[in-house]
């Protein structure tokens, strides 16, 4: 297996090349099969490599393929790292990726750009695999920007629509703002450690940290990259707009994999963050603010995908909260369960949109459970999982984060609970409005309501099972010291950092049970409230225009897009014109032209000197000789 891991990213790349270069000679059916088969083979290889890692004697290893480029003592290898973290990420990316490829065959079946879509998905998986397999920060950076490219291509997949194109561009540019931070962080890492390879940096970090002022700067710069990619405050506004892309894209890229890259990167660099407590505090604040802020926007959105998008931003916030308190395993655990249930929810929403003939507004849905039984059940499982009811996956991962918060500071726990209650509310609001009550769409839509084809429902079922049972890999300590498999499996990654963590006393089992009970009870009450409002009272969200007061502010997403536009985008464009017309054309070029004109003027003046009068010439010659002699004498 060891010598085959390069195939894991290369197979999807080959799929992309084949479908792209094949062009029209490759029929749709073949394109779907090629793309899915490529990912499936990668998945099998990933499973094989992963199973090796279950052997207790397994050691993480690096494989170098070639030197990418170098300049002086700065040399970058094209090399891959296989360790517990990258292997689990491989499973998520190829596993969820494969399911979404299969789903896309059904979902995109009638789209004229089907082949192009499948090829882009393959290209995305290739870059995502580079991102998680790279053994140094620059291979990560290739993947990092590469997935950004695919995100751009897929958000703007329906490129005839200029709103979508604009959303695609916005995503790319906002990501690039973060990427600059990441790039500078990489420069600084090399300055500090003389290498950008994970192994070398992490080995050196503990001894360097004591006297280093740079580590906080490095970690903040890397985190700026994560803010862009993982859509945290203040660079999150691209993600809701990214919903312009086809729904499988939202599931794969903008929920399950790409947007978690920032979380992955921080977990990967955990030792650096453990050694920079100030940065951790920043991450905690950003994560917490994002989690609650985005959840509150989710309360008032009526586009099924927008609700899920803000939910994703909010859940990513939870992952960063965990990172901020140094609970790297908990963050990864939530990344994993979120990949399952959020992919499920997006694909479920895709199935709904598919059935509704493209309709995305939940005010025009309702009562869909009898038309879409499979979608309904699986969506419900996803909703319970994200709301955090046991024994579904989201409960365990969120519970672990909340417990970590409590042991740090009960106040943080309360904030965390607030966010999770908001989540439970908006998710069940979404669920009730979509699947319960009576149908509010047009008759034509009602006539066409149908359950999606097998290729779409099968991935839903698989993801629903994973969302239901996925949490058992990380059971809390109250179920036994060794109940948490994930902790045990990932522990080699955190060995180096552990010595720097103050080990606060474990929560007592009683406290932990108590916290769990409290959070479950609160969530249950919240769900009942949502049920009361949207089922018993049959309340419907009002029209956009009749929103009042703070609700309107929420519905309009706190006007952040408008503010960014007025503060950044407009002045930026205006200054561009000022620079061009006022400065460049008028002043700089004006001076050039003026000196040209001056030269002409002088020419005209001196033309008069050449008058043809011999006497004048002789006079000037004598004057010149005298000046020259004088100068010579004086110097």
């Amino acid at each position, binding site marked *: 297996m060891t010598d085959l891991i390069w195939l894991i990213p290369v197979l999807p790349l080959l799929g992309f090349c084949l479908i792209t270069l094949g062009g029209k000679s490759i029929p749709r059916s073949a394109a779907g099969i090629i793309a899915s088969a490529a990912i499936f083979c990668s998945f099998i290889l990933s499973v094989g490599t992963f199973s090796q890692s279950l052997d207790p004697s397994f050691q993480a290893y690096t494989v170098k393929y*070639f*030197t*990418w*480029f*170098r*300049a*002086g*003592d*700065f040399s970058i290898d094209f090399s891959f790292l296989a360790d517990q973290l990258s292997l689990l990420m491989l499973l998520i990316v190829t596993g969820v990726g494969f399911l979404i490829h299969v789903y896309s065959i059904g979902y995109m079946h009638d789209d004229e750009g089907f082949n192009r879509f499948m090829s882009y998905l393959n290209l995305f998986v290739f870059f995502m695999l580079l991102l998680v397999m790279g053994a140094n920060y*620059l291979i990560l*950076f*290739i993947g990092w*920007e*590469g997935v950004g*490219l695919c995100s*751009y291509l897929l958000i*703007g997949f329906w*490129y*005839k*629509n*200029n709103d979508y*194109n*604009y959303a695609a*561009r916005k995503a*790319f*540019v906002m990501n*690039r*703002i973060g*990427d*600059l931070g990441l*790039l*500078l962080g990489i*420069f*600084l890492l*090399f*300055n500090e450690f003389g290498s950008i390879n994970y192994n070398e940096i992490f080995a050196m970090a503990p001894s360097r940290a004591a006297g280093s002022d740079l580590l906080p700067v490095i970690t903040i710069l890397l985190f700026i990259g994560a803010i862009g990619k993982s859509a945290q405050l203040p660079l999150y506004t691209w993600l809701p707009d990214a919903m312009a892309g086809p729904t499988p894209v939202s599931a794969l890229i903008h929920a399950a994999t790409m947007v978690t890259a920032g979380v992955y990167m921080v977990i990967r660099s955990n030792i650096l963050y453990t050694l920079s407590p100030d940065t951790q505090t920043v991450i905690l604040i950003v994560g917490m603010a994002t989690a609650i802020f985005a959840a509150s926007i989710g309360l008032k959105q009526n586009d099924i995908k927008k609700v899920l998008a803000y939910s994703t931003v909010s859940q990513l916030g939870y992952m960063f909260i965990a990172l901020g308190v140094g609970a790297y395993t908990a963050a990864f655990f939530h990344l994993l369960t979120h990949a399952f249930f959020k992919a499920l929810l997006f694909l479920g929403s895709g199935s709904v949109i598919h059935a509704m003939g493209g309709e995305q507004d939940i005010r025009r849905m309702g009562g869909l459970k009898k038309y879409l039984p499979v979608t309904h059940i699986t969506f419900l499982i996803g909703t319970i999982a994200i709301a955090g009811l046991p024994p579904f996956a989201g409960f365990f991962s969120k519970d672990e984060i909340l417990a970590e918060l409590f042991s740090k500071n009960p106040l943080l726990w309360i904030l965390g609970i607030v966010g999770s209650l908001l989540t439970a509310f908006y998710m069940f609001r979404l669920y009730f409005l979509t699947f319960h009550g009576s149908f509010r769409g047009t008759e034509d839509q009602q006539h066409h309501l149908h359950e999606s084809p097998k290729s779409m429902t099968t991935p839903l079922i698989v993801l629903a099972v994973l969302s239901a049972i996925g949490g058992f890999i990380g059971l809390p300590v109250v179920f036994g010291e060794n109940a948490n498999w994930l902790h045990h499996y990932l522990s080699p990654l955190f060995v180096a950092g552990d010595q720097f963590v103050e080990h606060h006393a474990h929560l007592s089992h009683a406290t932990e049970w108590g916290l769990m009970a409290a959070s479950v009870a609160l969530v249950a009450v919240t769900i009942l409230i949502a049920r009361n409002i949207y089922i018993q009272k049959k309340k419907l969200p009002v029209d956009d225009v009749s929103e009042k007061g703070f609700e309107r502010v929420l519905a309009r997403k706190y006007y952040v897009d408008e503010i960014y536009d007025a503060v950044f985008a407009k002045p*930026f*464009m205006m*200054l*561009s*014109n000022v*620079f*061009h017309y006022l400065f*460049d*054309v008028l002043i*700089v*070029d004006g001076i*050039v*032209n003026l000196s*040209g004109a001056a030269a002409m003027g002088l020419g005209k003046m001196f033309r008069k000197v050449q008058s043809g009068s011999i006497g004048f010439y002789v006079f000037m010659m004598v004057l010149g000789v005298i000046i020259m002699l004088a100068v010579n004498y004086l110097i």
Partner: protein
Amino acid sequence: MLTALLILIPLAGALIAGLMKGKSSGFMAVLFSVIQLIVTAYMIFHFQKDASIQFSMRHSWISSLGIEFYVGVDGISIIMLLLTNLLFPFILLASNRQENIQRPAFYALALLMQAGLVGVFVSLDAFLYYIFWELALIPIFFIMILWGQKNSQRITLKFFIYTLLGSLFMLAGIILVYMKAGQQSFSVETFHNSRLSPDDQQLIFWLFFAAYAIKIPIFPFHTWQPSAYTSAPAAGTMLLSGIMLKMGLYSLLRWLLPVTSIAAMQNSNLIIILCLVGIVYGGWIAVNQYNLKTLFAYSSLSHVGLIAAGIFAMNMQGIQGSLIQMLSHGINVVGLFYIADIIYSQTGTLMVKELGGLRLRAPHFAGLFMIILFGSVALPLTNGFIGEFMLLFGLFDYNHWIALFAGTTIIIGAIYMLKMYQHVALGEGSGFASLFSEVTKNDKMILIPIAAMVIIAGIYPLPLIELSEASVAKLLETISANSIAK
């Protein structure tokens, strides 16, 4: 011997193509440029990857003044030769679509220019170098003035006078070094070992710099560029932006930094800041440009500003990066200007706001366009990334804050390029765009290799780096040795 051959082949080609008629002159010109490329490839293949000067040829010429015909190739020159001779066949092929040119005259001038450019890059005698430097200017002047847009005469004249003025300053500088060194020689060795007094160096530095700052161009000496690029015929713009401006960048490495090292060290802050202004300012202006060629011109100001800044960082990453980026920028900008020419000849407009929907009508064209565009935006695994990364890293070594400001180019570059692409290629399109149809095989013959080079050089740039790294290391040694006052 081979080096001299590289000057002779285009000269012979110019003569023959000039004497032929119509399309056959184009065929002959392309043939000669391909032969030139084959000879170049042969030289690269046999190039010893060390810092020595190879394939050199040295004959006394005007012995009373110590002027020699002295040419040769080191790791820096070979990259420039690769740039010139690789791009020329494409540029000549690209001119094939031009209807309103007198072909024999055009091809003769273009090949004459190639001889001049190659001469600049291989001359190891300052006087010879100066002759080639001016020789390269004359053909482009005629190309621009004869076949440019209607208003091109005034613009071309301004360009010509402006650059000529700079060159005269340089000539004065060359003569000054010659006299001060007092060795009766213009050879590169004499110049590099001249080790003049700091005061002399200051004067000479600015004399040389005037020529290079105008040619590259470095802010604020750039105002000839947008109008010249816009009004010149497609081939002229490609020659100017793809190759000719690299004369200035190359000359910084060969004739400025090692000769006036002390002054270069003293002035590097100021120059880098000027470059920095150009990087941000050029990109910022490009954001709101609606003429494709003007947009590319300002984008070019931004890109070459970064290259020049990297050179003045005077470290391995900066200079190595500048060489890689000169090559990449040449390839990408020729591709982009060619694309602009295709769009113009099919739709009759270059205004991005009047376009749109090209992807719908010409998916292959739009795909190739996108690859070259992302090369220019410096996406990893494209050629642009390697150079830009090294340049920014070199600047980071020089000063962290400068790298931060220069780094905004990756954001601004994405803004103006993607905005332009959206206006030109995406959407439904109307009016002018409906005139557009998928590009021909001939166009693909040019665009596909360029797109392939964008990707290949991005994935495996190491062979290019190996060509020049020893020479760059030697250059840095020379600079640091010369920067200590005698």
